[in-house]
């Protein structure tokens, strides 16, 4: 039955259910068993924010504490995947991908293609993304577009606990490498989540609010900002449709295009930096495929082209706000049109 749990619990539950179902599923990462301040074997720390807590005791030997060397254990996880395991590697912060990019970009992403479809690489790399955690420029980036750019990788970024559980289960069952992006400021966010296992197929966006005047496309944390903006716009009688992409690769173009063909207006909200982002990608695709349906130029609401600031005041201004989204909508959907 469904009950309210946090996204952190939902991710833990997905790992638990898949480890129970399939002995090939293992979890690797820094501080997931021992770690500073942890009694270790008796009560493992469960990773830097405790997402994997409790699993060590249930599945002894299947949670592997790794050295502080991302290049080594991400490579090991990819190798284990190529040899029949289903590893879930926790990379702590997606920003750390910098030191293990060859393993992902040149190895994991290419195996299936270069070995003529004979190799599969069912690895999941879980990592925290996003700003707002006062963690400074090297632990706060939204690097989703970087991975979306690479063919051979699947990229997932859930906005809520229900989706996180179903998408992680799908990621573990998927035979391709999946970059699973968890927004650190959503870990405490609660939603109705069934106790049972379920998989949400990749490439299926969720229409989280229906509306006829403007389409707002987003993913991750900013879906909530978009919904907040939609609430405000409704008071001005502008009905916004809000689409949560859920997976960035593959991406559900059909749902986006279908919506824009109805509303004629598009606003893309992306926490990533503005250049070569999900925002530019979605805008460009819609312009190319549905130009005739557009009544106004697509708008992009993104982070600025700067590193994430450490100043709390500036950091709060960095992530797209509901105000910025409302302003972008107002620019292309003036109140007069709602009459």
């Amino acid at each position: 039955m469904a009950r309210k749990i946090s996204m952190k619990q939902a991710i833990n539950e997905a790992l638990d259910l898949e480890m129970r179902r399939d002995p090939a599923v293992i979890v690797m990462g820094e501080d997931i068993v021992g770690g500073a301040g942890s009694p270790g074997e008796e009560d493992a720390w469960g990773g830097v924010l405790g997402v994997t807590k409790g699993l060590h005791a249930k599945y002894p030997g299947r949670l592997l504490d790794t050295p502080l060397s991302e290049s080594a254990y991400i490579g090991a996880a990819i190798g284990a995947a190529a040899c029949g395991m289903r590893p879930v590697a926790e990379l702590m912060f997606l920003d750390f991908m910098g030191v293990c990019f060859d393993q992902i970009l040149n190895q994991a992403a290419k195996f299936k293609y270069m070995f003529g479809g004979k190799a599969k690489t069912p690895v999941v790399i879980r990592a925290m993304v996003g700003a707002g955690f006062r963690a400074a420029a090297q632990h706060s980036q939204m690097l989703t577009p970087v991975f979306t750019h690479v063919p051979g990788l699947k990229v997932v970024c859930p906005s809520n606990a229900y989706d996180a559980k179903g998408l992680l289960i799908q990621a573990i069952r998927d035979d391709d490498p999946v970059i699973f992006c968890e927004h650190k400021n959503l870990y405490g966010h609660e939603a109705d989540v069934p106790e049972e296992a379920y998989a949400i197929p990749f490439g299926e966006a969720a229409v989280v609010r229906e509306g006829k005047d403007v389409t707002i496309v987003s993913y991750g944390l900013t879906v909530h900002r978009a919904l907040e903006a939609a609430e405000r716009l409704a008071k001005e009688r502008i009905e916004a449709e809000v689409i949560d992409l859920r997976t960035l690769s593959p991406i559900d173009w059909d749902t986006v295009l279908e919506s824009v063909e109805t509303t004629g207006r598009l606003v893309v909200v992306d926490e990533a930096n503005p250049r070569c982002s999900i925002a530019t990608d979605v805008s460009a695709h819609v312009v190319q495929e549905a130009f005739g349906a557009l009544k106004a130029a697509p708008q992009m609401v993104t982070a600025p082209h700067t590193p994430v600031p450490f100043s709390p005041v500036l950091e709060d201004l960095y992530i797209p706000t509901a105000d910025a989204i409302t302003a972008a909508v107002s620019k292309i959907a003036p109140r007069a049109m709602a009459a």
Partner: protein
Amino acid sequence: MTDQRIKPVVMPKWGLAMEEGKVTGWLKRPGDRIAVGDEIVEVETDKIAGVVEASEAGVLRRAIGEVDTVYPVKALIGVVADADVPEAEIDAYVAGYVTPSADEAGEEEAGPTYEFVETPAGRLCYARRGEGAETIVLVHGFGGDLDNWLFNIDALADKATVYALDLPGHGQSAKAMPEGGVEGLARALLGFMDALSIECAHLVGHSMGGAVSTLAASAAPGRVRSLTLIGSAGLGEEINADYIAGFVSAASRRELKPVVEQLFADPSLVSRQLVEDLLRYKRLDGVSAALEALSGAFLAHGRQKTLVASSLAALDIPVLVVWGAEDRIIPAAHAEALNGRAKAEVIPGAGHMVQMEKASRVNELIGAHITA
């Protein structure tokens, strides 16, 4: 002191989770005469759109609920009163009306919660309403769940103790499908009644649930006091096999929505949330296998193979057949299959989900049937 001649029209509570609803249109205007069962005002929840029907007769004196505005459950959205009630009294009633909050309303008013019971067919989910001496068990159809009765369970609770269950493989019940297809589900239904010590009940079955209920009555004739078969499977071979196949295979909102729209005479009743809830159910591990096994067991070459009309003929209990005239899943012509054996009622303007689309008429028919 409430004047007995003044009757409030309030935001209804449809389903276990409903907290508020939006008024989307008035079908009557102030001054119109209202008969019991008249459709007064259209309401939309995040689950489904529906119509508030008059439970009492009079004149619509006030249409308070503004279109496109959201009101909490039990908020006053209109007033029905006799024509001779003075305007001042109506105004005083409106001014003095206090919407009961969910907390104050207590458990009974807040609606049923989901409960679970262990049975030989696994852990089954159910809801229970009312305290009447008679017992009604509501049995949903293929791919459905107990919330298919959201417009019925409370209305029927005035007359009986009402149970609605999720059959195995459905809703929040265990997903393992018992052996034997529809007959297996009939055994599971009797097992459910055993587990809750329901000795004897009126069974109300929708679609495949009608065939399940009939087979349960055949297997344990003493335990079923009457049957109500709504858009029932098992009364003829024809069925919209494309619907069943589409429902089983649809994995996305875009695939599922047009399939589900076939269930209603008015497809606009299918909301985003209704489709989303069905997808959430279909994604659960085990559901695809359960639905495939079940559809394989009751369909062959696009036709129904579990036929129960002959079992019905042998039963010595009252049988009521109800159908939506615009049923696009199982033809309404099957309502006549039991000509003479059962009372049959075909309701215009409704599709396969007639118990949702014409809830008050169906509730009235069931109420009369079980007390007959």
